[in-house]
Structures are given as structure tokens and as C-alpha cells.
């Protein structure tokens, strides 16, 4: 962190008055990018310099030069015995983490790559961006999920459910924090949804919304519709084929299914958020509250002036992890809407897209999709970092 700042320092040296803000922004950006590379370069350089530096003999042989060569070697080895400790993890990661990253990069540029073809050696139509183009255009010719649809679904679900559940968690934590009796009991019950299996509970939620029976003979419309019926709202086919939706171009916005998914995500996301926020609140120094009490501050004032600022790091942490998790959701959708993720994959998510194309045998498209998911997550991380950084600097 410190180093980065030092490297980006030159920005401040650029005379600020000669340019307008717009131009300045780009100069800033350029310097920043350069700074980033300089940073990395220095790090790599330092590493290699360190690697090839002739070490003074004392480093290896603290006890003097009279040791035999074998002994010296053994001691040298011994000083590196840390590698032995990390070896299992390293080997596993090499096979299951590092290699796949490389393979995904290569595979996504092999156009129309099908790993199954040619007796498992795979076949592809030359190198290029063909996979990406086809995936983005939805022109895969396989009738599988549509990438843009999946992306929109994922973004909508994530950016609606995460802030909502964080807000709700905040309210509940504040309420929990303000009571004295049976706090533990509430806390425990509220934590229960955390332990559930997304698929299993998804199925339970689906029964709340499911209409059973035929159009002419409805057996039950589900609890939610019954409750809505008390307010004079006609039953809605929330999760079925007749689920209401809007159409924008060739895309479907299955809003009723969105609502179901969002309710589920809020329910399942709350416990973790409550736990984090509540324990953060508990660890706030009581002196602040005492001081506020002495001054007769109202609860709202205490909340907004003391509690909220103190737990800001936790809130931003929850938003970041929530968004990251949201971008990768899949099992809950399968639990709610089945393996085909709604009708014609209209509730598909990014991860669902990958598995869909693995099952379709279209390895190249799956790779390209996974790489794009990676890029999108990186962009969101980057924006997140920007926003959180700003917030911390301005406070």
C-alpha cells in the first residue's frame, strides 16, 4: 500500500491549473497505470535480484567455513525445509488451480473448441475471439442458455438482494443490540438459515410459491398467493411456466421469479450479515454510548453518529463479499427453479451458464464464459476498491 502511494506520487506534481478536470483525470489515470506497472516491475526485479544475489557465506554457514560440502548442502537444504511444509498445498494447487487458469485462457481462444471430439484430443476452428463473439451474441446454435440473459439475471439478483439484505441485517442488528433480555435466543434463531442447504431450502421456498393443478382445476395456489389473496390480489404463477415477465428485445425479465429468488437470497443471506454486524456492534467501546447517554442523545442520533460510522468497515465488507457471492450463485436457483433454471434458462446465472455449456459439450464456449465471468468479477472488485477507498479517505 505504502509503496503504491509513493509511486503514484508524481501525479500531484503535474501542474493542476493548466488542464481542466477531464484532461486531468486522464493524466491521472495514465500515471496511475504507469505507476502500477512500475510497481510490478520493481517487485519482479527485486525478486530476481534477490534470487541471483551471491549471498555472503555467513548466511549459509553461520558456524564458519570448516564444514564439509555435504554438511553445507544439508544445512542449505534444511534452511529451505519450509518448502516441504508447503509442498502438498503447492502440488495440489498447481494441478487444480494454476493449471486450470492457463488451460481456460488457452481454451477460450480456440474457436468452437469441443474437448470431446477427436477421441478426446479436442477439435477447434483456429485461434481467435470467435468463442467470445458467439457467446456474447448468443449465437452458439445449441439452444443453451443465453449469456446476456444470464448476466442480466445475475446482476439484477445480486444488486437488489445484497443491499436489501444488508439493510435489513443492519436494522435487525441494531434492534438486537438495543435489547437486553433473550438476546441470545433471538440471535440463535436468526442464525439458523445460515446452515441450510441452498438446494434443499430452495425446494422448500418453491412450495410456498407453487401452484399445483391444471388451469381448469387448481388444487392449491401456495401460501404466498393465499396471503396475497387476502389483499385482493389474484394468484400469480410465481415459479411455473406461466410466470409473468416483461420482454425487452429478445430478453425476458421474469420479474416474478426475480422476486422469489430475491426473497430467498435475503432469507439465506441475513444470518451471516446479522452475525457480522451484531458482533461488530458488540465490540464498540461502551464509553461512547455512556457518553451519549450522559448527554441525553436519542437512539437515532446514537445510531447514526456512533454505531453506523463504527461498523462502516463491516458494512462495506459485507457488500463486497455479498456481491462476490451473488455473482457466483447457482445452487439456490436450481433449488427454486430446477436444473433447467426456469423456462428456457430464463433464470440462468453466470455460473449456471458455465455448467450448461459443459453439459452441452461446448468446452470452448464454457471457457470463454468463465473468462468473462472472471473479468466481470475483477471489474466489480475494482469498482468496489475505488468506492471503499474513497469512502475511507473522505471520512
Amino acid at each position: 500500500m505504502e509503496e503504491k502511494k509513493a509511486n503514484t506520487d508524481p501525479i500531484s506534481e503535474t501542474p493542476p491549473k493548466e488542464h481542466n478536470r477531464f484532461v486531468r483525470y486522464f493524466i491521472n489515470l495514465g500515471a496511475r497505470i504507469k505507476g502500477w506497472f512500475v510497481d510490478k516491475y520493481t517487485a519482479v526485479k527485486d525478486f530476481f535480484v534477490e534470487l541471483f544475489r551471491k549471498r555472503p557465506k555467513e548466511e549459509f554457514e553461520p558456524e564458519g567455513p570448516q564444514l564439509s560440502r555435504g554438511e553445507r548442502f544439508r544445512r542449505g537444504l534444511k534452511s529451505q525445509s519450509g518448502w516441504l511444509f508447503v509442498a502438498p498445498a503447492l502440488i495440489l494447487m498447481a494441478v487444480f488451480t494454476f493449471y486450470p487458469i492457463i488451460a481456460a485462457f488457452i481454451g477460450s481462444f480456440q474457436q468452437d473448441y469441443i474437448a470431446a471430439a477427436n477421441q478426446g484430443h479436442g477439435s477447434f476452428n483456429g485461434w481467435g475471439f470467435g468463442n467470445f463473439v458467439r457467446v456474447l451474441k448468443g449465437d452458439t446454435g445449441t439452444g443453451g442458455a443465453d449469456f446476456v440473459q444470464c448476466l442480466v439475471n445475475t446482476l439484477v439478483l445480486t444488486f437488489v438482494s445484497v443491499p436489501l439484505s444488508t439493510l435489513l441485517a443492519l436494522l435487525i442488528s441494531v434492534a438486537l443490540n438495543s435489547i437486553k433480555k433473550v438476546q441470545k435466543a433471538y440471535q440463535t434463531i436468526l442464525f439458523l438459515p445460515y446452515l441450510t442447504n441452498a438446494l434443499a431450502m430452495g425446494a422448500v421456498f418453491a412450495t410456498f410459491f407453487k401452484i399445483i393443478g391444471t388451469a381448469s382445476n387448481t388444487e392449491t395456489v401456495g401460501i404466498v398467493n393465499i396471503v396475497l389473496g387476502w389483499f385482493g390480489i389474484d394468484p400469480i404463477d410465481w415459479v411455473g411456466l406461466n410466470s409473468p415477465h416483461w420482454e425487452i428485445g429478445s430478453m425476458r425479465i421474469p420479474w416474478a421469479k426475480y422476486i422469489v429468488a430475491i426473497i430467498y437470497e435475503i432469507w439465506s443471506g441475513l444470518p451471516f450479515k446479522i452475525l457480522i454486524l451484531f458482533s461488530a456492534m458488540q465490540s464498540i467501546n461502551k464509553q461512547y454510548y455512556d457518553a451519549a447517554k450522559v448527554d441525553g442523545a436519542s437512539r437515532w442520533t446514537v445510531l447514526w453518529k456512533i454505531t453506523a460510522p463504527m461498523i462502516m468497515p463491516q458494512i462495506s465488507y459485507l457488500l463486497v463479499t455479498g456481491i462476490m457471492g451473488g455473482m457466483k450463485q447457482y445452487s439456490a436457483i436450481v433449488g427454486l427453479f430446477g436444473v433447467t433454471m426456469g423456462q428456457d434458462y430464463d433464470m440462468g446465472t453466470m455460473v449456471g451458464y458455465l455448467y450448461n455449456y459443459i453439459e452441452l459439450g461446448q468446452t470452448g464456449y464454457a471457457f470463454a464464459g468463465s473468462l468473462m465471468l472472471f473479468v466481470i468479477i475483477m471489474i466489480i472488485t475494482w469498482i468496489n476498491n475505488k468506492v471503499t477507498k474513497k469512502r475511507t479517505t473522505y471520512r
Partner: protein
Amino acid sequence: MPKLFKKKNASEAVVGKWDLSAGDEGFDAEKAQKREKIRHVIKDILVYIFLTVCAVLAFLPFYWMIMSSVKTEMEFRESVPTFFPHTFQWKNYWMVFHQATSATSSSASFGQILINTLVVGILSTLLGLVVIVITAYALARMEFKGKNILFALMLATMMIPGELFTISNYITVAKAQMNNSYTVLILPFLVSVYYIYLLRNNFMQIPNSLYQAAKVDGLSDMGYLIKVMIPLTAPTLISITLLRFIGTWNSYIWPRLVNTQSWQMITNWVTGGFVDRIQPTSPWGDNWTLYGSQYGSSQPLDTLKMAAVCMVSLPLLVLFIFCRKYIMRGVSKSGTKG
């Protein structure tokens, strides 16, 4: 650390500012106090109501799941659902348990699936723990060339969504002939960078002087790790263990991809449809079904599904009841799910 410090300063400043504004108050103290008290009571009541509503909503799906699992399908489908079952039909569980399997087919019975899940859960948790502990120890305490680069590299992979790995890993394990085995469910998930990172930080907090003292006592690295560090970080380790086990219990995607039914896990089992299948033998007579031909043997029944869901979810709830402290602490510390 410095961040936190800064924050504290900031809020102190805020408190100070607000101090001034709140300065001029205080007349008719007694009346105000009384009013204040009433307001407090009302607020308290509201808070309790709010919390109770939330708690009820949080618990409702569980209640519904358990109650539905013992209802008859007819009752479940009544146009106005009953909140408490008229008749308890425990046979649902028997039927789900006996969604029978033929002798040579590899579709799995509940018993087989449960064994799979337990074996994989326990082994992957324990082996994973060993790997995590020794790696974290080396990264925290030992000196070797390239340690920092390695650590940075490991942390960098945390940025990449695991789904990116799935496709290649799937091909890798298949080429290595590992399909339809427990190994394939365990091996790829032994290393968890996040837990390594967490534990490393935990280890780092243990004062270095302890290490020096141990060295003087002639304790080896391994001895120090086992005799000193592990006991000191036991709570974190227990939390990691529990969370990993829960994670394995809930795994769905990978087993579905790499293994056939008899090697899959409990979550895969629960996604199947459960129908009113004719049971050749049962305690209630031969060729027994729950509802005769009313629902046929091709229509998945929700009550049976709920019974299956209960069988999968309840063990976790039991685990929670016994290890509430560790699970909650682990979650608040590690902040990951499984």
C-alpha cells in the same frame, strides 16, 4: 490496524461535535424523564415485535418443511393449507428412505449416499486441515526462499472465481481415471487459500518469543507446531473444521459433474423426484403404496420431497445445536460459507 485507529479518531471527532450541539437542554427534568421512560418502553415493545416477526419469518420455512414432510399429499394440496397436520403420516419417511434401488444399478439408496457424504466429509475435513495447518505454519513461521512470492500467488488465486477451474479440473480428474471415487470429491478441495490465510494470521499473532523459547527447549518445528501453536489456535481450528464439514455436506455441483449417482452426495440425492412407488415389501403389506393409484408412480410428490429435505437439513441443525458457539465464532471470523 492504522485504519481502525483513524476511524476511532473520526468518530470521536463526530461525538465531540455533537456534544456541543446537545449542550443546551434540561428543564423540567422529572416530567421529561417520565416521558422518556414511556417512550423507551414503547420503543422496546416495538423492537421486540420487530425481532419476533423477523425470527418467525426466519424459522417459518423450517417449520413448513417439517410439517409438510408428515402431511398426506391430499392435505398438502388443500386449497387452504393447514398450519398443523390433521394426520401425521410418518410413512412418508419410510417411502423416501426406500426409494429403492435395484441390485446392480448404480442409482443410490439413502444409506449409500449418507455413507458417501460422511466418508467424504470427514476425510476431506481432516486431510484438508492437515494441509492447511502445515502450510499456514510454514508461511507464518518458517523462512525459505520465495515464501512471499508464493503467498502472494496463493492470495491472487482468491480473486479468481472457482468456476473457472471447474472445466479443466473435470477433464483432469477424468484423464487421471478418478471418476466415481471418493478421491475425486476430496482431492481438488483440500487446499483452501482462505483458511490458510486466516490461520496464518492467527499463527502470526502468537508472540515470536514463544518460538525462541521452544527452540531453546529443543523443540523441532513440528513439535512446536503440535505442542504450542495448535493448542493456542484450537478455537479457530475447530471452527474451520465445522465449516468445512458443512461445506462438504452441501456440495452439489462437483459431485454431480464427476460421479454417477452411487458416488454422489446427499444434496444430489435430494434434487431427485420422489414418487409414490410401489414397494414390493413393507411393514404394511406387500405391494404397498401410500395412495394407491391416486398420484400414479410418475408424479413427484411434494410431501415426500419435504421429507427428503428434512433428512438432509436436520443433521446440520443438530450439529448447530451442539456446536453453536464454534460455528458462530468461526463464521464471524472467517466470513465464508463452507
